[in-house]
């Protein structure tokens, strides 16, 4: 079977990561594929991995009380999603389903947490990368909350 290393090296999330770490990452990575409409996970499920999207579009959904679920974000090729694997109790905070055929690399969170515990430099490097993703998403969420298109021009 072909190694996943070249795919990981090409993904923007791992841009300029020290080459020595890719071997460690490959040990926790698997290739996954979801058909359009397929559920990746549900809110409350065990968050045991995160995804690097290689192709297609994933919808992240939340259900307001007594209302239909709403899509609150979409994630496409080149992006990463899922950071609940980093924070106890390791549970998903939203549902995710494939809007189109999705090819992604899934990285096993438990496996990676173990490696980060053993090698804090790797841990720090990954946390920095995830932190920038989380801040960006938080910033986007704030903008969405501001209802910027409804505002007076």
């Amino acid at each position, binding site marked *: 079977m072909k190694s996943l290393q070249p795919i990981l090296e090409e993904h923007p999330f791992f841009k300029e990561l020290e080459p020595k770490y890719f071997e460690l990452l490959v040990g926790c990575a698997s290739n996954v594929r979801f058909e359009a409409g397929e559920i990746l996970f549900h809110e409350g499920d065990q968050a045991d991995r995160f995804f690097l999207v290689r192709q297609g579009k994933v919808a992240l959904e939340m259900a307001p009380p007594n209302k239909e679920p709403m*899509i609150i974000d979409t994630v496409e090729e080149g992006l990463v999603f899922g950071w609940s694997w980093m924070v106890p109790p390791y549970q998903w905070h939203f549902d995710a389903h494939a809007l189109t055929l999705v090819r992604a690399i899934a990285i096993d969170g438990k496996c990676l947490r173990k490696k980060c515990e053993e090698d804090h430099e790797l841990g720090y490097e990954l946390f920095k990368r995830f932190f920038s993703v989380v801040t960006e998403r938080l910033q986007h969420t704030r*903008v969405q909350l501001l209802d*910027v298109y409804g505002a007076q*021009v």
Partner: protein
Amino acid sequence: MQGNASTATTQPMIPLPHRILKVRRETGDVFSIETQPEGDESDFHFVPGQFNMVYVFGVGEVPLSISGDPARTHTLTHTIRSVGWVTQALKKMKKGDRIGVRGPFGTPWPFQEAAGNDVVIVAGGVGLAPLRPVIYKLLAEREQYGNISILYGARNPDDLLYGKELEKWRGRFDLHVDATVDSAKRGWMGNVGVVTQLIPKAISDPDNTLAMICGPEIMMRFTVNELQKQGIENSNIYLTMERNMKCAIGFCGHCQFGPEFICKDGPVFSYERVRNIFGKREI
């Protein structure tokens, strides 16, 4: 020979009567009206970016950007969000009713500067309306520009303006069109997120890209930040500003924005020109 119904230079304070030809509902609170000047003066010339003062007799007058095709000079189109007295009165009007129009006023979008470069258009909500004439003109002169991208954000799928035209533009091979909404019900296959998220994918050559932005100020602020992050120079970012207006010809001072009068120095400005006052709450 047909006369010119553009009154901005000849009689800028006198509204010319226009007859409403069509009222079209675009979204819940947004509609377009197509009008035609009455009498001989049946041609109306404008450049994309310009606006008119539209008068509802007995109610009041408001500035509205022109949202139609600049090449179609025999009718005039405005796309309007109903928010208050005048715009609600406009919403109630029907085919055959009369309104007054003064204009066109204001500065155009920078087509000369854009020629030979990639163009990124970023619109938020009803901000797509003043940019639609730009799109018509860019497409009419397609060979003069590099890559053209239209990025559009709205609250939800029902609030997306000009749905059919967006679809048509999206189908073209020489145009990149991407839209996103703040949230959507299941079944929506497009993007969900903020419009700024669409920007990185649309820019391949920042040194040779010119951006045109229109939307609420807060949305334009976030957009400018992202464009700068992608390496676009302040002098290549253009935006359109709005302030209350009365005269529209630089006399009354109603539209003052720092040292600028939006009616005559704008509404289209380069970001370089307004960056010291843009986004300042006290101005």
